């Protein structure tokens, strides 16, 4: 494998979905949903096959040779700025490209069934493909600007797809919120990039890494850059304080939630941190911030998830919470553990969303049959007992629930436990405690969801229940594949204390060439020094215990004695309402950010429009009158205002220069 032989296949990975998007955008209206969807699926599936092929070849290369920077020509060479169209292939970008294209292929396939009756299916598939293109560009980009291109692109597509059903103003505003909050994050990203550029004169990953090489740990430059980039990450990956857009983003079609708002786009922030691990490793303060924000988000979002009634809202807060875990891992320097959770989470969370989509789809169908358009097909209070009626959905959903709740031997257990272990072993025990609590809450709200939806009896009556039937294979096949992956993916990154057969942690080994920088080694030494197998066993059993507690409580409250849950809510009405209101954070932002900005704009506008520095002009007039000059009223009419303002402006500039 060489740079030359890689150039074409590597470019194909993002370009195939772009081609699909263009074709669907131009000719989609002449086809039907199946053809359109098949084209889109084939496009992204092609990307996956190319990535897989590269992956197979990659494994035969020596470790130090697993990094290729392919340059496709100059992009911007202006003044001291020089940027190329370049793609970077290393284990990290390959890992992302693989799971993104893989999960995306399954979700495209699922969409054929889910969106089959949608009149604007071509637009939908074009957006979905366009998103895949942007996401793959983001992870494969060879410098900060190509990455930013993808970064903005995924934001735009997410916005388009959230607002896909634009006839609903609430959904349109959710799209706008996502876009705007993400722009705030982008502000941080750009500032970080400019900071690096101003000090190192380059925006190329390699050159920035070289420029950082000589700096001491704790130097202001990596710290500031890492913190600014982290602001960008909190926007894209929905962390405190910018998480607010993600739950609202659930207004989009459910496969979109699965692809963009669970499996791929929201992990872009983690990719960015992993890509900049050399920066973060030089900046302990930034790392600690990342860890604290991550742990807080994990716990905070989990509490909100406890009481939500909308099935997708629970999953949304669960996503925010799980992303918090990943940031927590990054924050203690356990990049590999964080990335492992990214991958396993992509499997089981995509599965959960697709399963929820399957339920919603079936509910829709039933409501359609009984001509009821008022009830919310996403409200879990209307569900119940669906296990018999949607068996494949149920069994796959069960696998995913066990995986996310952290029961062995499913994927979530290994990845989450690895994170908690690393957090503990690096001595961050308060953060570990937060993570452990969040794990218990996760288990509780996931099983609550499972029981409310699939167990008990259907709350719409038997007559209605007869209309249920399992969704077609095109929708259930992705569920089954993802279920298998959720069940077994954990063995890819087997922790050494469970590695009885001495398979080795393949995931660790695969990523090792990326993270061989000094501090990562330091971390490993710290972990090894602290750790012993007994402690690791104890912690693992502890987290299984906490998950079991969550399971049992959920079972008691929502399956065995449902009145208990209501009683608990009545006992703490204030707390319950707070949780239902999501701690009123949206309202807080409205008061603290949105209103002041609007007021400031109004003030600017008034100043420009009506009075035009009225105060200044009037003040001058008054001054002139006081001075006894025969100046007539200056403030009459608008045009004299303009002229006076100009003269004042000149006077101001003159004063500025001559008083210095």
């Amino acid at each position: 494998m060489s740079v030359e032989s890689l150039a074409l296949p590597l470019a194909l990975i993002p370009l195939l979905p772009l081609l699909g998007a263009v074709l669907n955008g131009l000719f989609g209206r002449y086809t039907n949903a199946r053809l359109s969807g098949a084209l889109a699926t084939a496009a992204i599936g092609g990307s996956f096959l190319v990535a897989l092929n590269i992956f197979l070849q990659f494994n035969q290369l020596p470790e130090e040779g697993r990094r290729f920077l392919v340059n496709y020509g100059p992009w911007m060479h202006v003044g001291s700025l020089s940027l190329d169209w370049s793609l970077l292939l290393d284990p990290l970008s390959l890992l992302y490209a693989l799971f993104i294209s893989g999960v995306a292929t399954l979700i495209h396939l699922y969409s054929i069934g889910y969106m089959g009756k949608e009149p604007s299916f071509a637009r939908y598939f074009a957006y979905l493909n366009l998103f895949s293109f942007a996401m793959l560009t983001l992870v494969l980009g060879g410098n900060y600007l190509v990455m930013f291109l993808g970064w903005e692109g995924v934001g735009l597509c997410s916005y388009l797809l959230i607002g896909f059903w634009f006839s609903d103003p609430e959904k349109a505003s959710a799209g706008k919120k996502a876009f705007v909050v993400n722009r705030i994050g982008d502000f941080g990203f750009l500032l970080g990039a400019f900071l690096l550029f101003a000090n190192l004169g380059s925006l190329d990953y390699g050159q920035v890494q070289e420029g950082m090489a000589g700096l001491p740990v704790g130097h202001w430059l990596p710290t500031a850059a890492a913190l600014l980039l982290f602001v960008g990450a909190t926007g894209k990956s929905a962390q405190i304080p910018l998480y607010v857009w993600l739950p609202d983003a659930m207004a989009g079609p459910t496969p979109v939630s699965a692809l963009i708002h669970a499996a791929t786009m929201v992990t872009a922030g983690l990719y960015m941190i992993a890509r900049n691990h050399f920066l973060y490793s030089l900046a302990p303060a930034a790392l600690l911030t990342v860890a604290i924000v991550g742990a807080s988000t994990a716990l905070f979002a989990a509490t909100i998830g406890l009481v939500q009634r909308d099935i997708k809202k629970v999953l949304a807060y669960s996503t925010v919470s799980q992303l918090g875990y990943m940031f927590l891992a990054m924050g203690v320097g356990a990049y590999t553990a964080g990335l492992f959770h990214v991958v396993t989470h992509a499997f089981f969370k995509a599965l959960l969303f697709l399963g929820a989509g399957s339920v919603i789809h079936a509910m829709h169908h039933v409501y359609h049959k009984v001509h009821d358009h008022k009830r919310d097909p996403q409200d879990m209070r209307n569900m119940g007992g669906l296990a018999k009626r949607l068996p494949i959905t149920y069994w796959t959903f069960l696998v995913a629930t066990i995986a996310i709740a952290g029961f062995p031997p499913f994927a979530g257990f290994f990845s989450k436990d690895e994170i908690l272990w690393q957090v503990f072993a690096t001595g961050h025990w308060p953060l570990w405690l937060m993570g452990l609590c969040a794990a218990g809450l996760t288990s509780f709200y996931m099983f609550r969801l499972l029981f409310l939806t699939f167990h008990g009896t259907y709350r719409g009556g038997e007559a209605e229940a007869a209309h249920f039937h399992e969704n077609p294979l095109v929708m259930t096949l992705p569920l089954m594949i993802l279920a298998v992956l959720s069940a077994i993916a954990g063995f890819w990154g087997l922790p050494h204390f469970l590695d009885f057969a001495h398979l080795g942690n393949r995931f660790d080994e695969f990523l090792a060439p990326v993270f061989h920088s000094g501090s990562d080694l330091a971390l490993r030494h710290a972990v090894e020094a602290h750790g012993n197998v007994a402690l690791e066993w104890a912690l693992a059993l502890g987290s299984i215990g906490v998950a079991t507690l969550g399971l049992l409580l959920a079972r008691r409250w929502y399956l065995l004695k449902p009145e208990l849950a209501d009683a608990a809510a009545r006992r703490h009405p204030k707390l319950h309402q707070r949780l239902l209101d999501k701690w009123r954070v949206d309202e807080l932002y409205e008061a603290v950010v949105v209103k002041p900005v609007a007021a400031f704009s109004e003030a600017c506008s008034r100043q420009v429009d009506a009075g035009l520095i009225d105060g200044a002009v009037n003040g001058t007039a008054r001054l002139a009158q006081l001075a006894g000059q025969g100046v007539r009223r200056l403030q009459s009419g608008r045009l004299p205002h303009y002229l006076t303002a100009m003269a004042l402006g000149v006077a101001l500039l003159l004063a500025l220069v001559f008083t210095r």
Partner: protein
Amino acid sequence: MPTLNHYLLLAILLFGLGVTGVLIRRNALVILMCVELMLNAANLALVAFGRSGGSLEGQAFAFFSMTVAAAEVAVGLAIVVLIFRHSGSTDLESIRLVGGGAREEQ
């Protein structure tokens, strides 16, 4: 014998006079005349500099600026006449410019 500085001082005074006139007068025609005063102050400065520096550039510039001023007056008068025809006045106050958000071109 007046020196360059005297001429400059005079030019600055003239200019200040013009600016003041623009600010305190409200008849569009008078404002136009005051602007001309500002331009002439500039011409004076140009000629004075040219004379003291022994170059013709300043004088040449002054000629050009006089031509421009003439063109500007022609257009300015046309606009003022246009306004006068519709509102019967050249007083900025009685024209009551409302601009801004109040009126839009349709």
